[in-house]
């Protein structure tokens, strides 16, 4: 089982969710974040002072999937979230040691079993 972290533009959320659902992934956790990467800073103004807006609002999606879902999930995210301009975001994949379903109290090896 792996965890995929995808940092995307906020306005792409529903596209990404739909795209993921089409490859059979529906469980996920969404976190509003502020991020900084390649995207150019914008300049804000407040009371006569310019300031760098050096953090941009993004959404972070955490998606746990079985090993053989990783690549199609990553592809689904890229397909739905890409605009080609800086600020599109990044995807990182992590290993998971163990997983539990709180409702059933069970430990399982694949997220599908987990979702029973």
């Amino acid at each position, binding site marked *: 089982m792996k965890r995929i972290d995808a940092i995307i533009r*906020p*306005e792409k*959320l*529903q*596209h990404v969710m*739909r795209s993921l659902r089409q490859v059979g992934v529906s469980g996920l956790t*969404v976190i*509003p974040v502020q991020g900084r990467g390649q995207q150019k800073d914008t300049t804000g103004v407040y009371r006569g002072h310019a300031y760098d807006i050096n953090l941009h609002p993004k*959404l972070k999606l955490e998606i746990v999937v079985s090993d053989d879902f990783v690549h199609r999930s990553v592809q689904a995210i890229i397909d739905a979230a890409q605009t080609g301009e800086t600020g599109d975001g990044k995807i990182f994949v992590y290993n998971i040691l163990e997983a539990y379903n709180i409702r059933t109290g069970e430990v399982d090896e694949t997220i599908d079993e987990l979702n029973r």
Partner: protein
Amino acid sequence: MNTTTALNTVWVILAGALVLFMEGGFSLLEAGLVRTKNAVNVTMKIFVDLTFGVIVFYLIGVHLLFGRDVLHLIGFWHVVSPSQVAPSAFTLFQIGFAIATASIVSGAVAERMKFSAYIVIVIVTCGLIYPISGHWIWGPGGWLGKGLGMEDFAGSAAIHTLGGFMALALAYVVGPRKNRFNSDGSANVFAPSNIPLASAGAFILWFGWFGFNAGSTLSATDAGLSSIALNTLLAAAAGGGSAILFSMYRYKVADPSMTINGSLAGLVAITAGCAYVAPAAAIIIGLVSGVLVILATGWVDRIMIDDPVGAVAVHGVNGVFGTLAVGLFDVHQGLFTTGNVHLLLVQALGVLVVVAWGLSTAFGLGVLLKKTMGIRVTSRSEEEGLDIVAHGIPAYNELERFSDPPGFSMTQFTAGNTEPKEV
């Protein structure tokens, strides 16, 4: 129309508009003090007051309250309005008072009462409960006011005591919010969602109260008008001030919810006596009420009745205190000012009657609702919050989580194609 009548009418219309604007104050105060997931619901309940409450009081309540007296107990049909002011101005002003009574209740039952049950409560409160006891105090020929000489200028008893004790009974019937009290009787803190909104509500209420009290002259040429307004201000200031000091002494911090409620307590307490007491007495009444509201909040917790906004402590307890205080400080017949105890006894009787009436009618109504349509949302709905359950939308939406892309999941409603909701 002659100039004096015109002036009276304009005054009463403006005062009435101020009283109606107080609904906005109730809405903000409650939205700020409840948890985020119920902020829409409390606002919507104020809209119920301003819609159902207004119409019902206009069609029924005002006749029961100010109609021709029947047996000193109830009014019937033709509204007897004071001659110096246009009848429709009088009606408008009285509507504002009636729905204020309902709004007092709304806060105490917040976060767990069914929306539909609240609609019924507003209809019965504005249509029956308030007009009947109101008639006793203010109606032409009412047995407490006209009969015994009870003094309740702008309604510490008729509005606030009634609303506050109805709130107590209904909060008891509907029961405390989940996890609010522990098995050992101790209370948990449910943090208020938005204090700047709550205090904005308090400022609006304070502003509107000038209309509430000074407008109750129903006449611009009333020589007492301006000292009523000044007394109102002084009592509110004293109430807020003593609440700040007492909370700093007791809790080592100046508690904002207690400060807000202290000011409101001062306003409630001076409401009966604003026309009858001296400014110095107004300050004393305010000072006491600011302490009283803090103590009373503790009492209400201790009897394990859950009142999220403190309506019982503010309106109930200080309504009683304010009504009694007239018996103490009235410049002509007060105990402290003249040594005469008669008025105090009348006031005490009046308060007892109103408390009993408020508790019993609200309790009866609550139990009836519980047995029939149900008065409380399910435990699951309470956890989810009434905003989603009864109104379909959360109060604050930062995340654009509902903007579904083409063909995703959006369906236009047509009547009938949805599951019944618990509202």
